């Protein structure tokens, strides 16, 4: 690829530019910062949209009381029961129980703290399900 041909398409990465290797007019390789390539934006948003759809679906379920707020926050942090168990040191079968509304209601403060810590939030937030969609971290 020639340096002049390195794509500079606007992308959702905003100001973040990535380093591309391309050749200058003398045919020598140089590093050219790129704002993005449309191709990347397409496949990246495909992946991001899939995650967001899943987060939104779980938020709706949590609002209806079908799953616990913990399930919502776990999904928000791109985790599943296995990863959450690994990050908290709580047995996976126990985590699965806490993902249910009933199981979550019985949690003591210490366990709530452990979940909140692993998910990067405070206990207060962990108990809530937001009324509006939110993404990732604040």
């Amino acid at each position, binding site marked *: *690829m020639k340096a002049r041909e*390195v794509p500079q398409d606007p992308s*959702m*990465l*905003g100001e*973040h*530019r*990535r*380093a*591309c*290797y*391309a*050749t200058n007019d003398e*045919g*020598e*390789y140089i*590093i050219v*910062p790129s704002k993005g*390539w*449309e*191709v*990347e934006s*397409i*496949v*990246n*948003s*495909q*992946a*991001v949209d*899939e995650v967001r759809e899943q987060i939104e679906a779980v938020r709706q379920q949590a609002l209806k009381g079908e799953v616990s707020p913990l399930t919502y926050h776990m999904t928000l*942090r*791109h*985790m599943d029961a*296995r*990863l959450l168990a*690994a*990050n908290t040191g709580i047995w996976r079968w126990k985590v699965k129980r806490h993902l249910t509304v009933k199981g979550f209601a019985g949690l003591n403060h210490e366990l709530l703290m452990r979940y909140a810590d692993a998910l*990067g939030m405070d206990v207060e937030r962990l108990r809530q399900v937001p009324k509006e969609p939110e*993404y*990732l*971290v604040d």
Partner: protein
Amino acid sequence: MSTDSSQLITDLNNFNHRHAAHCESGTVTTLLRSQGLDLTEAMVFGLGGGIFFIYMPLFKMAGMPLTAYRDAPRIIIKNICKRLGVRMRSHRYRTPEEGMAALDDFLMQGIPVGIQGNVFWLPYFPEEMRFQYNGHNMVVFGKKDNEYLVSDPVVEQATTCPAADLQRARFAKGAFAPKGLLYYPDYVPTDPDIAGAIPVAIKTTAKRMTEIPIPFFGVRGMRFMANRLIKWPEKFGIKRASALIGNVVRMQEEIGTGGAGFRFIYAAFLQEAGDLLDNEALREASKRLSRTGDRWREFALLGAQLCKGRKQDPAAYKDLANVVRDCADREEAIFNDLKKVF
């Protein structure tokens, strides 16, 4: 601890940060430079044997078949140590408290260290780039108040990261869990035999690309993926097939490959090696690999069109497979020729 006698860096601009394509080669380059050995990222990537191809459909990462245009994590570090005579010290820690205290100790002594962390917890990345991935590498070189000063090679400028986030990133669990991994070179030769290391590195890489008798690796892996790819729409349905294509393209073009799934950065290495050894065959191989990289970019373009349009013409998958096969043929010829250079 008194800060007067320490060498703690507290100024973000007080570090020679350089933008790189790939986190592991970039981190190693920065660490070596901090010890006086100034190599390009492409040279580190090439000597470290970074280029490869892996397709292992039964091994899933975030629900997607493992697809990589590079070799396993930490292979570059390992090869650079072996081939240049660098001695790298690595430490892992049982608790976050221990790991953060050790990091502070090194920074107090003015020693920049490489660390491994989970991308999801690094707030300086744009939200869309943050996925649960434990294999990211970066350099931490200082601390100011409660923020660490970070030279992340794939980010254009040096940046900062709050202590709580860095701790979470370093002690995230799951696949490739970093366990607080921290590393730094404690011996770097002043004048390593780079000219002698180049043939060893190229021959090893060429063999790995062409000779591993297992279908998942090197050019065999590419052909294996091409054969499977044609069946995706029929086997998994339209939506999943398109997501699978999207995943391959992401592995090739998203942040961290320098374009065309590391083919361009390896071509840059071959060019530099060719100039250093005044070897025309290496310069020629560099040009051929560049053209193969352009071909991989055509694959990415076709793949993205397919993802966007969701038009499910089976011929489109056939076209994609043919481009991959063509890339495999080209790379097989290039690396077979490279074996004969030395």
